[in-house]
């Protein structure tokens, strides 16, 4: 187990290094001079040069990369051009919205997909299964922003249970903040649950026809134990994989949903930063997004090993 972890950890670090180089390189070759954008077209060459030196833009590729990474590793990030504050703080503040939103969305997705997927598998081709499958088809075809708008119409406008958007902030209103995240998280979760439900169903179907499930039944185990104790764990691996991908994407910010619900999350931050050509913000956020995906995948790998003892050998 320890060796497996170390191996995965080394892979993780190498991946993060490669990701940072790629992110940096892509933004480096992008046309457009940040200094020009900040100062406008009427800027004098002297002021442009000064600003470039200030931003470190006059250094070589490797010099700029080393400068950026060095600062990141030391825990000092660059200033946002637009917000005039460290990018690190911007990301931290947005993540306080996006992180809980992503986790809540995955919770909703899991709470929906596991029971329904298992139910559909156990009642294959019966009425209940068909209903579940039609619903997932609908879920797959529904754009999440539209679903979010529908939810707002129903729960905020008609019933008045939730506010239609905005985020009060955890320190001012904890319960209100949680409430503000519920609808968007549900919208994100339901759409993701559609894929996960289908996946759970097909994975479960496969496992339920395995010999060891027949053995479990032949032992006289209760059907509940057969399904949850013997089959489910074997069926989880593919579900986990996709869940990991989804969580990684959600941590990178749900740009559209955050805009629909006026949530100051990562998605909104990067969306605005791109519009404002706020290069340091864009670069750090893109790196963060990529790192989130890589780290979540690392966690998924660990979860595999916990679920399936055969994995540690390989």
């Amino acid at each position, binding site marked *: 187990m320890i060796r497996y972890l170390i191996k995965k950890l080394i892979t993780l670090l190498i991946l993060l290094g490669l990701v940072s180089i790629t992110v940096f390189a892509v933004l480096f070759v992008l046309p457009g001079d940040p200094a020009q954008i900040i100062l406008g077209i009427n800027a004098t060459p002297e002021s442009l040069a000064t600003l470039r030196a200030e931003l470190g833009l006059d250094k070589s590729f490797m010099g700029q990369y080393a400068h950026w990474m060095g600062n990141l590793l030391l825990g000092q990030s660059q200033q946002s051009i637009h917000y005039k504050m460290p990018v690190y703080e911007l990301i931290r503040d947005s993540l306080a919205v996006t992180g809980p939103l992503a986790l809540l969305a995955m919770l909703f997705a899991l709470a929906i997909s596991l029971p329904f997927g298992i139910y559909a598998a156990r009642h294959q*081709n019966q009425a209940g299964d068909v209903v579940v499958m039609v619903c997932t088809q609908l879920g797959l075809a529904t754009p999440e922003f539209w679903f979010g708008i529908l939810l707002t119409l129903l729960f905020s406008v008609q019933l008045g249970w939730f506010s239609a958007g905005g985020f009060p902030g955890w320190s001012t209103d904890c319960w209100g903040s949680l409430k503000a995240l519920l609808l968007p998280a549900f919208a994100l979760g339901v759409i993701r649950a559609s894929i996960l439900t289908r996946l759970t169903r097909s994975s479960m179907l496969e496992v339920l*026809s*395995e*010999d*060891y499930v*027949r*053995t*479990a*039944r*032949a*032992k*006289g*185990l*209760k*059907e509940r*134990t057969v399904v949850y*104790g*013997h089959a489910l*764990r*074997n069926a989880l691996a593919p579900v986990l994989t996709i869940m990991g991908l989804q969580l990684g994407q959600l941590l990178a910010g749900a740009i559209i949903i955050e805009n629909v619900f006026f949530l100051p999350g990562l998605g909104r931050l990067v969306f605005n930063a791109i519009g404002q050509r706020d290069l340091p913000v864009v670069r750090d956020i893109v790196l963060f997004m990529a790192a989130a995906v890589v780290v979540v995948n690392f966690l998924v790998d660990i979860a595999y090993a916990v*679920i*399936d*003892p*055969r994995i540690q*050998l390989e």
Partner: protein
Amino acid sequence: MDPKLLTIEALSVHFHLPEGVARAVDGIGFDLQPGETLGLVGESGCGKSVTALSILGLVQSPPGRIEAGRILFESRNLLRLDAEGLRRIRGRDISMIFQEPMTSLNPVLPIGRQVAEPLMVHKALSRSEAMAEAAAWLDHVKIPAARKRLDDYPHQLSGGMRQRVMIAMAMVCRPKLLIADEPTTALDVTIQAQILSLMLMLKSELNMSVLLITHDLGVVAQMASRVVVMYAGQVVEEGRMTDMFDQPFHPYTRGLLKSMPRLGDRRAGRPPRLNEIPGTVPSLIEAVSGCRFAGRCPHVFDVCRKQQPDLFKIGAGQRARCWLKRYPDRRKPDA
């Protein structure tokens, strides 16, 4: 009081497939005395395994459906029991071991837990009591250092060891009947012998009945006192093991016996040749009006193709489904 432990009467199991209805088991019947070992023999697809799975109610449905018949276990019709009633019998009164020890154990659960589970379910033992007894059983089926292996996973064991685990799992509740579906087929020959002698030892120790399903007549000869031969979903011959080997009646049984390779079976100047039964098992979906073996039978004559023979009494306890009983002169000399 009925001395029989298990009686199967006119059991029919059909599979409703898109291509049609496959009569996997078509009106079979046999019985089993307490303490007896019965060999259920036939080639792949003849309905042996489906018969075994029907006893425990494990035929996958759909597409499978038990259409008719009775399965009496200690005078109770298992087919009439509800799911919960059947569940209480599985693993406690009737246990089953399967052909593939590689895939029949759950890969993500430690073997100790898998062996202990029936004890917790049927005997209401606590986890630690059940684990202690599981360790004792693993030791009893000769798994070396059994106590230390409770937390091992199936992939850490060899095929033979896994089959021992399967056997321990089937034995923990001391069942009255063990159904062994090709228990040694997936193992290599030396391991086969070990597993068979282990099964013989446990059988006499627990005085249980064994329904041994196999296509391997050598295994039957070693284990069984009586044999039922199945062909295309029907019983074609049954009798005492010795009678069946010495004087098989049905041409199919004879073919099976002849197709067994023997050491030193070499005719002068020619390389040894394995005997086979020509042709293949008929499709179970098409309705056959005559004898199901007619297409492959060396003695076939007109009656065979028109009408299905009954199980005729041949001798003491021996019966065969063959028209040659009525028309003995039609038997060709050593075809």
